[in-house]
């Protein structure tokens, strides 16, 4: 009886946390609309970037870029960190894993392109609803899902007219969105308060910020080639990507995760059923 009550209380707290978080993101969205797309320096979400300046963010972004790149290659080469130790991970890379990569790439890339350019906020700009899939693919399928997300974003870049060497940053940046919740969520079932809170921390906040800073650093470092000025990268692109990722992920992903986890687990496609650690 008391365990039932405490469980209900925990769920209530979780819903309040989720609602407050979504309300905060909505507030940021309204703030952007009110102040206008042409005034990014006035947006609430841009203030940390204005306050610390482009140089500081370039240094922070550089550290996260180096860490993300090392993790990306380490994971693909079959090494991972588990329990604070560097261990071998055995991903089968059999036809099922390869199909999972193709599936997630097609669904993510196709969905991004299918909804590209469709204004969600009429007359203002558009968001990317398919972003909600990226952290889910990591949580459900592990490294093959994260890799599919990376490839999917690359395909979407070509279809939306943004393909450049900057897309290499987008490739690993989107891998990171999927990788962070896959690696750091302890409960990946989307069926407990802990699982939902963990998703908000790792899948929404940390993954969105890391992905944004990763890509932004790459764009800034390659500015002589790509041609984007530092002020644009850190004063518009970085905060916008954080908002764009976090907003849709916070609202849609936990619901999709709740729906998709059981059938994927039941078919033995969940990463916990397919990866071994040595």
């Amino acid at each position: 009886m008391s365990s039932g009550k405490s469980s209900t209380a925990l769920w209530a707290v979780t819903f309040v946390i989720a609602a407050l978080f979504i309300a905060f993101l909505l507030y940021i969205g309204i703030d952007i609309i009110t102040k206008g797309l042409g005034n990014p320096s006035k947006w609430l979400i841009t203030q940390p970037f204005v306050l610390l300046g482009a140089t500081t963010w370039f240094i922070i972004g550089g550290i996260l870029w180096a860490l993300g790149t090392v993790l990306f290659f380490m994971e693909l080469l079959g090494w991972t960190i588990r329990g604070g130790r560097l261990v071998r991970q055995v991903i089968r890379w059999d036809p099922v894993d390869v199909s999972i990569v193709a599936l997630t790439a097609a669904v993510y890339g196709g969905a991004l392109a299918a909804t590209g350019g469709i204004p969600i906020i009429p007359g203002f700009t558009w968001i990317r609803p398919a972003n909600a899939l990226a952290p889910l693919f990591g949580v459900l399928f592990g490294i093959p899902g994260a890799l599919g997300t990376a490839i999917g974003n690359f395909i979407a870049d070509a279809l939306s007219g943004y393909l450049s060497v900057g897309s290499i940053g987008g490739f690993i940046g989107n891998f990171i969105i999927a990788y962070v919740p896959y690696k750091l969520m302890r409960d990946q079932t989307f069926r407990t308060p802990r699982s939902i809170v963990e998703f908000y921390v790792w899948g929404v906040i940390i993954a969105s910020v890391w992905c944004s800073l990763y890509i932004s650093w790459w764009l800034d470092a390659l500015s002589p080639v790509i041609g984007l000025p530092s002020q644009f990268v850190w004063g518009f692109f970085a905060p916008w990507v954080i908002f764009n990722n976090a907003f849709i992920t916070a609202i849609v992903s936990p619901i999709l995760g709740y729906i998709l986890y059981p059938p994927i687990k039941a078919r033995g496609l969940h990463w916990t059923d397919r990866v071994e650690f040595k």
Partner: protein
Amino acid sequence: MFDQYATLTIIGVIILLIGIALYAARKKGGLMLTLIGGLWLFTMGLYYGLVATKLYGSRSILLNVIGIIILIVGATLSIVYIKKYLGQAKR
């Protein structure tokens, strides 16, 4: 002059060749790299195709339609293949 798209194409070719070499040598990860290289070059093909048809960078609805086609065809083929492979593995 630095050509971004030639660079991206060369990267795709290198990944594909390494993948094929590893796959031929029956090394683990060969299939994965072949797939990455293949899809990378598919993207580059898509880019060159869109440039040739003057659709690249446009706001044409056709681009959304291509996205839907990739989503449906890619997802269907992958799911059919996963089901077939899992069915074979059970037997």
